[in-house]
């Protein structure tokens, strides 16, 4: 079920948030902030900004009516933080590598039929979310299945404890497989940049 955008009123956003996300705002903020702080390596200001970006995205999806009720709030919220981190990383990397030189005008983007920027994200953002998930899956597709399973669950916001339960393996095995996967991916990464 996707909510109707007309049913969303600004005053009801907090209640709507709880209905669709499956956690009250304070609880959700804590989950998001803890993951953001971790990914920001303890840098408080960066964690605040990352948290805010994730909340803005949720609010935009709620307003646009593109958010389906969340089944597992904790991993879902952590995955949103992961994705926001990845988008930022990509954006910064592109700038460092001179990506800003590859500028096409916004009109030009529209002429080419690509997504125009919009102040009110709509269904395209849901498509973008799916696109990011597909792209990340493609990036790790060369991993052996046992390692890939751990990485996919990690990208989906699960903790080692949860991964161990889902895959029926000891928690330490999940940690070991994650480290092995990183080593594996680092090898691909250096090959890709050559």
């Amino acid at each position, binding site marked *: 079920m996707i909510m109707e955008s007309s049913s969303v009123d600004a005053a009801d956003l907090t209640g709507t948030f709880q209905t669709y996300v499956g956690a009250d705002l304070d609880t959700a903020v804590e989950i998001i902030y803890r993951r953001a702080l971790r990914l920001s390596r303890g840098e408080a200001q960066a964690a605040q900004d990352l948290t805010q970006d994730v909340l803005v995205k949720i609010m935009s999806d709620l307003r646009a009516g593109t958010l389906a009720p969340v089944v597992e709030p904790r991993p879902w919220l952590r995955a949103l933080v992961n994705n926001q981190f990845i988008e930022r990383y990509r954006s910064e990397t592109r700038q460092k590598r001179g990506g800003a030189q590859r*500028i096409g005008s916004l009109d*030009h983007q529209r002429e080419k039929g690509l997504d125009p920027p919009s102040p009110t994200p709509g269904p395209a953002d849901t498509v973008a979310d799916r696109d990011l998930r597909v792209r990340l899956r493609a990036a790790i597709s060369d991993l052996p299945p046992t390692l890939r399973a751990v990485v996919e669950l990690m990208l989906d916001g699960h903790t080692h404890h949860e991964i161990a339960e889902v895959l029926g393996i000891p928690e330490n095995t999940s940690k070991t497989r994650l480290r092995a996967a990183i080593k594996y*991916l680092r090898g691909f990464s250096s090959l890709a940049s050559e």
Partner: protein
Amino acid sequence: MRESIDHNDREHDLGAVVSLLEILADLDSVDEESASLPDGGLAEARASAARLFGGSEPTAEADTAPTVASMMFEQIEGWLAESTLQVATSRGAAAAQTLDRHEPGLVAYGYEPDVEIDADIDADAATATITVVVQPVHAIAATLVLTITSAAGAVRRGTVNAYGIVVVDDVPISEASPNDLRFEWSMAT
């Protein structure tokens, strides 16, 4: 050409995933759910969330948020809007023309009132990197933070460094709503 772009995209995706996983693996021993949090950090995040979602702000905890000390930069929005359009129409130049501003309020914090503002606009990503140069008057000037907030609530911050430069990356811009950015100085906490 398309293959080259796909290759770069995949390389960026891979780099981003590795970077994310490395951080998560580095902190394997930390229990994310029960780890101690910096003083006031969670309260500040909740206060921001309450503002964003239009609910009541937690009054007792709001004191922990940094105090906004000063001023708005008027006219920047118009300049940025004009620059965005220039980039869009010229399809090449990425840097906006430098904007000189006179901000008398900066004197109170130990800085000259004249500032220079530059923007590098990435129309492709619909973001801008905004650089502001301020001149300290005294040997010891207050450390200032520049906060840029979009109407959608996205917040970007940068701190003035020892050379009087503050860089704010990844500022979301939109040709459709170019005047929705708010610029504010505050004292670093």
